[in-house]
C-alpha cells in the first residue's frame, strides 16, 4: 500500500473519483457539484473526468434531489445526492425518512435503495444556527438509514466508498471544520465497512467515545491525560447507525469508565443511546456513571466566544475524564 498525506477533503474527493471510475452506475447530483465542484470542493474534477451525464448540477430542490436518487436507486443505479449543508436536510426529510428508509421494509423486501447522501455538518466556523448543526441522532433514529461520520482523511475516503457500495441509504456527514486536516491515505481504492468502530488509541483508565470532529479533540485530550498519568482509550464509532456497540462495551469492561463526546446537543443525542447501552451491558464493570460531554440545549451561536463555549474541546474532555477517574 502506497500511502501519502492528504487532506480530508482531498481524500474524500479521491474516493469519489475512484469509485466512479470503478462503477458506471454511480452518478452525482446536487447544487453546484458539477461546474464548481461543490461548495467545499469535495467534488472537484469529477465533471471533467466523468462528464455531465454522471455529474450534474441541480436546481435548488433538495426534495427532488433526494427523491430522484431514491427512484434511481430503486431502479438499480447508485446515486450520490449532495445536500451541501446538513442543516438543509429538513426540506428533503420526507424523501429520506419516509421513502428511502422505508421502501425496502414496507415493500416486503421487494426493492433495495443503494442511495448515498453526502452533506457537511458541524460547528466551529461562525456559520451560526442554520449552517452548523450536527443532526446525526435524528437520522440514526430511523430504521433503514445508515449514518457515517468520517473523522480522518483515511475514513473520509474509505467511508464514502463503503457508503456507495452499501445497498442501503447512507448519509455521509463530512465535518466542514476538518476539510483541511491532513493524514495518511492509501493511493488505491479501499472501503471501510459501515458499523465497525475505530480504536484510535488504546488505554486502560477511561474510554472516550467521540463522534466526528470530537475524535480529534479526544485524541488531543488523551495525549494530555497521558502526560498526567491517565491512560485513555479513544473510540471513534465511525458510523452512528449501525453502531458498533460491542467495541465500546468491550472497552468499557476494560477501563470501567466511559465518557462520550459529541458536538450535537446532549439531550437526546447519540451519547444518550451509547450510555444506555453501556450500562445495560456493562453495569457491573462500571466504576463511575457513564458521562456525556456535548453541546448545551441551544441552537449553535454565532459569536466565536459563544461558539467556543458551545462545542466541546480537548481541555473540557481532559477535565471530564479526570473527574471520572478521580471519582473512584
Amino acid at each position, binding site marked *: 500500500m502506497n500511502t501519502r498525506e492528504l487532506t480530508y477533503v482531498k481524500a474524500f474527493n479521491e474516493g469519489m473519483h475512484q469509485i466512479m471510475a470503478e462503477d458506471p452506475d454511480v*452518478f452525482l447530483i446536487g447544487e453546484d457539484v458539477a461546474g464548481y465542484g461543490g461548495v467545499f470542493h469535495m467534488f472537484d474534477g469529477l465533471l471533467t473526468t466523468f462528464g455531465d*451525464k454522471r455529474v*450534474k448540477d*441541480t*436546481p435548488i*430542490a*433538495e*426534495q*427532488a*434531489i*433526494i*427523491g*430522484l*436518487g*431514491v*427512484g*434511481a*436507486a*430503486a*431502479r*438499480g*443505479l447508485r*446515486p450520490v445526492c449532495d445536500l451541501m449543508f446538513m442543516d438543509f436536510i429538513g*426540506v428533503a426529510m*420526507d*424523501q429520506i425518512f*419516509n*421513502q428511502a428508509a422505508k*421502501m*425496502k*421494509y*414496507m*415493500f*416486503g*423486501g*421487494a*426493492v*433495495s435503495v*443503494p442511495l448515498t447522501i453526502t452533506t457537511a455538518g458541524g460547528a466551529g466556523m461562525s456559520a451560526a444556527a442554520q449552517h452548523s448543526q450536527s443532526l446525526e441522532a435524528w437520522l440514526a433514529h430511523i*430504521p*433503514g438509514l*445508515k449514518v457515517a461520520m468520517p473523522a480522518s482523511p483515511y475514513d473520509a475516503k474509505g467511508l464514502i466508498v463503503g457508503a456507495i457500495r452499501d*445497498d*442501503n441509504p447512507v448519509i455521509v456527514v463530512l465535518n466542514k471544520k476538518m476539510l483541511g486536516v491532513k493524514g495518511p491515505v492509501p493511493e488505491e481504492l479501499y472501503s471501510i465497512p459501515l458499523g465497525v468502530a475505530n480504536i484510535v488509541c488504546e488505554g486502560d483508565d477511561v474510554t472516550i467515545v467521540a463522534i466526528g470532529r470530537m475524535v480529534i479533540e479526544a485524541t488531543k485530550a488523551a495525549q494530555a491525560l497521558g502526560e498526567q498519568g491517565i491512560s485513555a482509550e479513544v473510540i471513534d464509532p465511525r458510523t452512528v447507525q449501525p453502531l458498533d456497540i460491542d467495541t465500546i462495551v468491550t472497552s468499557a469492561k476494560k477501563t470501567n469508565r466511559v465518557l462520550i463526546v459529541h458536538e450535537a446537543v446532549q439531550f437526546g443525542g447519540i451519547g444518550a443511546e451509547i450510555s444506555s447501552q453501556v450500562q445495560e451491558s456493562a453495569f457491573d464493570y462500571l466504576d463511575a456513571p457513564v458521562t456525556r460531554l456535548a453541546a448545551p440545549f441551544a441552537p449553535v451561536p454565532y459569536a466565536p466566544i459563544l461558539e467556543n463555549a458551545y462545542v466541546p474541546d480537548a481541555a473540557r474532555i481532559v477535565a471530564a475524564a479526570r473527574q471520572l477517574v478521580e471519582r473512584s
Partner: protein
Amino acid sequence: MTETLAPNVTYGPPEGYAAGVTRELVLDLHRRMVRIRMFEESAGKLVESGDMPGFLHLYVGQEAVAAGVMSVLDDVDQITSTHRGHGHAIAKGAEFRPMFAELYGKTTGYCKGRGGSMHIVDMNRGMLGANAIVGGGIPIAIGAAFAAQYRGDGSVAASFFGDGATNIGAFHESVNMAAVWDLPVLFICENNGYAEFTAQGNHMRLDDIAERANSYGIPGVVVDGMDALAVRAVAKVAVDRAKRGEGPTLIEAKTYRYFDHQGIKGMRIPYRDPAEVEAWKERDAIRLLEVIGTERGLATPEDFAAILAQTETDIADAIEFARSSPDPDPADILDDVYTV
C-alpha cells in the same frame, strides 16, 4: 383558440382520437376498468364489514385514468402512485391474489403483509409503489425516469397524483427538475375535485391544473378523465414525446371519486352535494366505453358481461387465497429493514 395566459396548455385529446379504435382495445380498456371497480367494491365491503384491517382509499369513478394511461405503458415503464393506488396497480397488471393477500396482511401479499393498501408494489410490472405521503411518489418517478435516460433504455415513467398534491413542494421541485433535464416522465394529475374534504376551489385559484405546466415550460393537457380513449390518446402523445427525448408532460384528467375519501361511506361528513355525485355517475367511464364499443359494433353486451363474470371469479379466488394464506411471523419483524 382564444388568447390564454397559459400558452403551453391544450384541451382535450387530439382530433380524431377515437378513429382507429379496435375491438381489442375496447376490451382491453374495459377489462382494466372493470377489474379495478370490482376489486375496489369488494375490498371496500370487506373493510366495512370488519373482515379486513386497515383503511382504503377507493379508486372507483377514476378508472378511465389508470386504464387509459397504462394501456400505452409496458412492464418496463415505471409508475409511482398514491394513497389511492389500487387502480394504478391493477391497471399496470398487478394480480388479485397478492393484492388481496396484502390487504389481509398475509405473507403471500405483495409486501408480505408489511405494507398494506397504501404500499402495494410490483417491481416486475413497473409498479414502484403506492405511497401514503401526498406527493411522495412524484420525486421518485423522476428518479425512475432519470434511470431510464441514464441507461438509454427507451422506457418512460409516469407519476400519478391528485389535485391536492399539486400544492405540495414535491410537485413543484420534481416537475421543474424533470423539465430542466428533459426527463422521460408523465405527470398525471387526477383531478377529482377534492383533497380529502376540501374542494378544489378552496385549495387553489386555478380551474385547470394543467396550467401549472406553463410555469415549468412544458406542455400541459386537460383531458376528460371519464373517457379512457381520450386519456389514452393524450398519454400516447406524452409517451412519444418523452421517448423522443423532449421531456415531460403534465396531464390533468378531470375525474371524480364515487365513494368517500376513505372507505365506501368514510366518515359520513357531508361535504359534497349528492346531485354532484349523481351528475358524474351519469358520465360513468365504464358505461361510456361500453356505449362506444357497442355503437361502433366493436363489442357486444355479451363481451362485457364475460369480462365481469371472469373478474368475479378471479376476485372470489383471490379472496379465498388471501384468507387461507399464512400470517406473518412476529419473529421475522426485523427482516428487510436493511439489505444485508
